[in-house]
């Protein structure tokens, strides 16, 4: 259900794997990519550090929370680590459910909590120099909406 890996992944194959259950009416997937622009210039690559002992545990807890809120049939989370060039895939979250709103909401919920609670850190390389990415207040704010609903 959760993979932390340096290798790339095949979003289409992961979505197909979630379609096997005959009760499944909806699959929603999110794929995050390395953008080539940052505030300080053109990004050629990023480096992803994580906290190996904690990463999977924290993602597991986020998925469990989503499972308590929505009738999820399947979940797949893949997050890459190490060096990734601009344009490469970083992360994938896919959720299957009988109905579309549950799949949409659960996938957005998992991504919001992954962004602010899972122990990953990005360093962007611009002209060969590395800059640790600053967290965005908008990511923390995104968690608020899940407390209100």
């Amino acid at each position, binding site marked *: 259900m959760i993979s932390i890996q340096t290798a790339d992944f095949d979003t289409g194959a992961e979505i197909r794997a979630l379609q096997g259950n005959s009760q499944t009416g909806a699959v929603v997937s999110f794929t995050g990519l390395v953008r080539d622009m940052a505030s300080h210039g053109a990004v050629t690559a990023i480096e992803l550090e994580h906290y190996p002992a*904690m990463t999977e545990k924290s993602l597991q807890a986020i998925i469990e929370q989503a499972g308590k809120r929505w009738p999820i049939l399947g979940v797949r989370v893949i997050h890459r680590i190490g060096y990734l060039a601009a344009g490469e895939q970083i992360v994938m979250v896919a959720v299957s459910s009988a109905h579309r709103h549950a799949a949409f909401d659960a996938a957005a919920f998992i991504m919001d909590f992954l*962004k*602010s609670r899972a122990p990953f850190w990005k360093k962007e390389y611009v002209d060969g120099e590395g800059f640790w990415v600053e967290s965005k207040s908008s990511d923390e704010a995104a968690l608020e909406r899940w407390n209100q609903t």
Partner: protein
Amino acid sequence: MIKLCFFARFREKLGVAEESLPLEQPTTVSALMSQLAGRGGAWQEIFDCPRGIMVAINQDMATVDSLIHDGDEVALFPPVTGG
């Protein structure tokens, strides 16, 4: 003894990824931070103010008021930026 882990910017600035530290009795995260800030230099810069520091005890998110016990793994890191 407790195990301390540092990640990302903290790891780089402090020049250390992990260390072991004696623990006489249970203490709070904020007391630990004060102790680390007392080392001066980059330690003081990072741990003088708990704002903008995330902490996990035994791989679960914790707060500055959480208690640390003997044998715990305490990770201190900047806000996460994955995804």
